[in-house]
């Protein structure tokens, strides 16, 4: 999803914003961070706040050529450079080129502080400003200045210096990010609850350790003078740095279906029953019990796209990827090769520590990367059986469908429906479980795949329950699954 970089208009109170460049953050901040202000990034150990600081300077350097100063009160600069060496940044090069300066206040230099009388901490301010002037820095990152409270006893003096530093930096036209450690069990965002008081804005990072992985959340607590999106969003740290996942705004007015463009299943009778194929941009729910062939139908849909020269995406949450590959092979479709060629991409994630926003962005990234027009989402029911609440599942699906519709991408969503055999026509046509009913407002079409027992045989029946905006056959069809996939047979009569 591309963002237009618009001129940063001042908010109603006249505070200008600037693009931090940290992926996702500017969107959450609705245009960027406040210029010439101080923002506190607070969190417990390991949440990634120091990385955020480094990335703040890195993006300034990389995207805008803005020199930056990193002020460290805890770790030595060499340690810090080593810590970020694994990111795909040329961060150290900027340091070597003198565009990135470290102001080193780390305790490595004093064995013990011997005090003899009263003192002032003005050198902190003087050295930082000197570094800023030396390279013409526009961004300053200050890591764990709260360490001063551990090293010096004069709390009043430390507070004075924090205010002084904040004022001086703002006067110098600097935009500053600084970190504070949240002590375990404390409700304060910094030592003595002071830093959040000095800062113009506060961002809180939290981590939650799940079974398999960590889930990370970011919340903007305050931002004097500017608007921002409230609520908590998720973020991730990869070898590219931080990635924040703003909520995809649900704007149904921009998402529409083009009924003139139809995407074929490669099953002639089905395409005909759909009025020519699925309309571009339609979301289709395929619901059925185990073994009814939902996965097969999805594969056929993708295989048709492959045949048309397109790239396709399969979101594998129900059946594991190796199983999907095997099933495809059994039907004569060489998915393994398609994966190797980059024609077919799988998106997977753990159901135990499902991060809905991260999954959403994984899908978005993959679809964007390969330019997919066809996606199979297997399955919606696995989302419901995960840790997500029903509301969260719904929110996720709405965001996903809005995004895909805006692209004109079709999505087949599988739904495992555990209903029993139905015998009478009344049951067949109206028996949709409450779950599927709830989803029906989100999707544009529903295909039902069912078993029916008749004359000592079990038959498979397909019908199109709904297809928004398009003529479709109301008939019920018998179908078979064989090597070529699903084959529609004659109409079923009672």
């Amino acid at each position, binding site marked *: 999803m591309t963002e237009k970089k618009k001129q940063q208009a001042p908010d109603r109170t006249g505070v200008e914003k600037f693009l931090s460049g940290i992926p996702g953050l500017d969107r959450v901040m609705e245009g960027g961070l406040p210029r010439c202000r101080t923002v506190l990034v607070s969190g417990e150990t390991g949440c990634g706040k120091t990385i955020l600081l480094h990335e703040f300077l890195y993006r300034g350097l990389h995207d805008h050529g803005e020199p930056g100063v990193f002020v460290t009160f805890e770790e030595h600069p060499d340690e810090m450079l080593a810590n970020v060496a694994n990111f795909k940044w040329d961060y150290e090069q900027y340091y070597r080129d003198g565009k990135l300066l470290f102001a080193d206040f780390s305790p490595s*230099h004093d064995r013990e502080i011997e005090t003899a009388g009263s003192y*002032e901490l*003005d050198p902190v301010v003087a050295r930082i400003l000197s570094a800023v002037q030396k390279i013409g820095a526009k961004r300053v990152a200050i890591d764990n200045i709260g360490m001063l409270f551990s090293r010096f006893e004069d709390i009043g003096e430390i507070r004075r210096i924090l205010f002084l530093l904040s004022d001086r930096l703002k006067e110098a036209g600097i935009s500053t990010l600084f970190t504070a450690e949240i002590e375990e069990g404390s409700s304060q965002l910094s030592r003595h609850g002071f830093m959040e008081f000095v800062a113009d804005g506060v961002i809180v990072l939290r981590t939650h350790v799940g079974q398999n992985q960590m889930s990370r959340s970011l919340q903007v607590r305050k931002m004097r003078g500017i608007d921002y999106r409230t609520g908590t969003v998720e973020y991730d740290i990869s070898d590219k740095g931080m990635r924040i996942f703003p909520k995809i705004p649900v704007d149904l007015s921009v998402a529409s279906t083009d009924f003139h463009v139809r995407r074929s299943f490669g099953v002639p009778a089905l395409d005909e029953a759909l009025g020519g194929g699925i309309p571009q941009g339609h979301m289709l729910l395929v619901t059925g019990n185990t073994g009814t062939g939902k996965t097969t139908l999805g594969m056929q849909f993708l295989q048709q796209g492959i045949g048309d020269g397109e790239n396709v995406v399969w979101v594998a949450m129900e059946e594991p990827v190796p199983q999907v590959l095997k099933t495809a092979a059994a039907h004569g479709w060489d998915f393994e090769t398609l994966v190797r060629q980059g024609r077919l991409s799988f998106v997977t994630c753990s159901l135990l520590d499902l991060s809905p926003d991260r999954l959403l962005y994984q899908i978005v990234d993959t679809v964007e990367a390969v330019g997919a027009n066809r996606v199979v989402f297997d399955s919606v029911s696995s989302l419901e059986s995960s840790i997500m609440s029903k509301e969260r599942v719904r929110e996720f699906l709405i965001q996903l469908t809005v995004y895909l519709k805006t692209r004109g991408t079709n999505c087949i969503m599988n739904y495992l429906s555990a209903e029993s055999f139905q015998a009478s026509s009344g049951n067949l046509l109206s028996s949709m479980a409450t779950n599927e009913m709830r989803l029906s407002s989100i999707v544009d079409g529903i295909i039902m795949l069912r078993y029916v027992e008749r004359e000592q045989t079990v038959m498979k029946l397909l019908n199109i329950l709904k297809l928004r905006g398009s003529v479709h056959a109301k008939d019920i069809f018998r179908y078979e699954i064989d090597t070529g996939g699903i084959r529609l047979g004659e109409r079923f009569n009672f």
Partner: protein
Amino acid sequence: MAKQQIMSKYRFKLYITGSSRRSRHAVDNVEWICKSLTDPHEYELQVIDVLQDPRQAEADNIIATPTLLKTEPQPAQRIIGDMADREGVKARLVYNEA
């Protein structure tokens, strides 16, 4: 005068911030300490104003002022404060010299 022992000079750097009362007191106190510590000619005292020369302050990792650095003789020492307790500070310096 014993020839086998060459006394190394005392070398001090005193960092201060501006010309506040605290800074002036610190300079007075340190000068007194220096004079009473050794022969008047055997010490070097460099007074550096952090505001005038922040780069030197950076080089010596100065966080607070006044900071007194003893660079000679070893071991190096670093004391922070106005050093109003002259005798006390002097004792610390002499003690360490052993």
